[in-house]
């Protein structure tokens, strides 16, 4: 049996990869993809702690995270479409309206 620490370490690695992706990528869609990676890392951690504690509450929360991820993808991609229609670009370096 794999100890739960291994799963938690994998979850931390995926979380860090998602964060690095959000920092380094310049494409808005790629940044949204990296947030999906981070959400998945949280899901793995929830289920791993479930396995350790011997409960299923974490899996219920993973269910809610799946729901919210669907809502987040819909709204985020709608915003990206609106930004693209306005600016004809999805590069974060060109979206600087709020800069003084």
């Amino acid at each position: 049996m794999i100890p739960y620490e291994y799963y938690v370490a994998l979850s931390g690695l995926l979380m860090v990869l998602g964060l690095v992706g959000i920092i380094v990528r310049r494409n808005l869609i790629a940044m949204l993809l990296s947030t999906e990676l981070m959400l998945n890392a949280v899901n793995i951690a929830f289920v791993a702690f479930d396995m350790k504690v011997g409960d299923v509450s974490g899996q219920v929360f993973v269910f809610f995270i799946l729901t919210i991820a669907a809502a987040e993808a819909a709204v985020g991609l709608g915003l990206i479409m609106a930004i693209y229609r306005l600016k004809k670009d999805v590069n974060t370096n060109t979206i600087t309206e709020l800069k003084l």
Partner: protein
Amino acid sequence: MEQQLTVWAFYTFSALAVLSAFGVVFFKNIIYAVLSLISTLIMVSGLFFAMGAELIGGLQILIYAVAIVVFYVLVISTVPEFKGNSVDPAYMLVSLPIGFILFLELAYVSIYGAWQSNVGLFTNEVVKEVGNIKAVSTLLFTKYLFPFEVASLILLVAMIGAIVIGRKSHVIDEEEAK
């Protein structure tokens, strides 16, 4: 035999998941990044099955790897190819130490953190008797019924919001009305 299978499943799925996650972060072509994301999601689903969470593993494939990724593919098909650099080298230098420190912190907290190891209602024996799906759905429709309803409301609001934000005509209509 079964134990050995779980060990092999963990190493295979986690290695492939991390490899595909690198692909999501570093592929320049966004289509390759989305395909890597599908790969990561399916591998994570396999990890859920290995951990004994069958319901979540199935939902992961049904909702994430099918429904959400289709959103991305539709939007990518309307946005033309990305021109600029995929990765900013200056930010790359900043992100690596930050990521490493965050990883150490996550590992430290989750392994040496003060754990109140309380045992929940659904211990291994109970789950083995009633099955994972029944255990999860029992909790979902009794203790977490109100959050479940709120989640459905959030989905409805997000759907309406996405339609209103993404609609093309209303921007043009307002321009013409002026």
